[in-house]
């Protein structure tokens, strides 16, 4: 028997949902294709939260193997696969830093590092499908357009896993100010991302 390699087999032409269907039947080529497509994105998300390459590698392996064992944990009604997968990665990484008694807290990105996140065009991951790459560009533009203090507050919550109280202590700002920044920043993001949100809901 001769194995059919992923390119030869046309797996690159399958969409994420079709690949996930194939995972139900333990299709290793579909699994490899999903890693090729989103492995860097998942790794980058986990690394952004944990800021430790070795621990991040272990966690990406854990996340992908969970996908392999339980492909039905994803339902298309929850939105696009890539959005769901990055949420799983972020939530798992945040759980990790919280379970480690906030050992990583001092390692969350500095305001300067966060500012550099959006300072100029980024080299895009060529493995990402065009629609996911477009969506990423739109989201990065929307985040970059926020006032820096609102963006910083939202990112400390999302990628730093900090509560509003912890953000207030870290930034030495009143709690009420932090709450306002989150509320206003998220309102602006929602307005800027309305087409993306419709797309997510439609899927």
């Amino acid at each position: 028997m001769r194995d059919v390699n992923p390119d030869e087999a046309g797996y690159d032409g399958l969409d994420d949902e079709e690949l996930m269907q194939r995972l139900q039947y333990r299709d290793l080529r579909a699994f490899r294709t999903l890693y090729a497509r989103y492995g860097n994105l998942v790794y980058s998300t986990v690394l952004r939260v944990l800021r430790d390459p070795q621990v991040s590698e272990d966690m990406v392996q854990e996340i992908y193997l969970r996908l392999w064992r339980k492909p039905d944990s994803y339902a298309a009604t929850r939105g696009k696969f890539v959005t769901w997968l990055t949420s799983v990665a972020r939530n798992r990484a945040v759980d990790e830093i919280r379970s480690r008694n906030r050992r990583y807290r001092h390692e969350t990105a500095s305001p300067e590092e966060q500012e550099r996140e959006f300072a100029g065009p980024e080299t895009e991951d060529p493995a990402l499908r065009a629609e996911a790459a477009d969506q990423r560009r739109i989201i990065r533009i929307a985040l970059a357009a926020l006032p820096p203090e609102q963006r910083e507050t939202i990112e400390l919550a999302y990628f730093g896993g900090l509560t509003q109280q912890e953000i207030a202590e870290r930034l030495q700002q009143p709690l009420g100010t932090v709450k306002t920044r989150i509320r206003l920043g998220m309102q602006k993001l929602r307005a800027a991302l309305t087409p993306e949100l419709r797309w997510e809901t439609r899927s």
Partner: protein
Amino acid sequence: MDCQQIIDLLDAYALGASDSVEIDSIERHVADCVRCWEELSKAQQTTALIGLSVTIEEAPARLEERIMAAARREVAGIHTAPKAGFFQRWRLNWGVAAGGLAAVTAVALFTSVQMQNQVADLEDENAALESQMRTTTSGLAQQLQETDTQLVQQAILFTVISDDDTREIEVTSDNGDAKAVYKWSPGSGVGYVECDGMPNLQPGKVYQLWITTSDEAVPLSTFQTSDGWCQVTMDLTFLEARPTGIGVSVEDVPGGLVSPAGGWVMFARFPRGE
């Protein structure tokens, strides 16, 4: 709290940044309030999109092979830790199986030992390759993938051949030119098909194995033949329903998902009780 007060808290809640008192208030409120529940869904969808903004860092090349090797090992190891499915419910009693194994013939034992050695050799080869992967090259990655695939296939073959309760069924094409034998281990849920006399395929086509149940045709491996011959291993532990038949079809690359597109090249129904 009224709806507007709750709505003001939802973005922080979706970000996981609320304190425990707020979490409690929100969760009690949205459980009974459709409007706020919908607002919470919007907040959660917006939050989920933030993850896509991350600056892409390239994952180490070895990570892909680590993950793929672990997935393949799980497939290979299914006979020791099967999932809860049809075959688990039909597993052999291990006491009976042990007694049966003690009675296998010398020829079967010899075959088993040979297979065991092959598996051990492949495991050694796999371990060596895995160590070399630390200084990874794409050539080594390819070798490791092929070795791992062979290891999975050998483990399944070994499981079936060494099972004293192996079953088999013959499958023949309508014109009788192509024949296949499906052998499987009922206690482990794995098996393999050997076929002969299969016609060559046009470019862009593959053979595909299917298992049928009373409700559907379940797609399995795609394969190509060598001089009309094939050997394809199968892992059916995921099946929840009782299998009723086995067949081979010809599909467009990369293979079908729903039902055999052009009908069966060959098909056989399992005798009742199998």
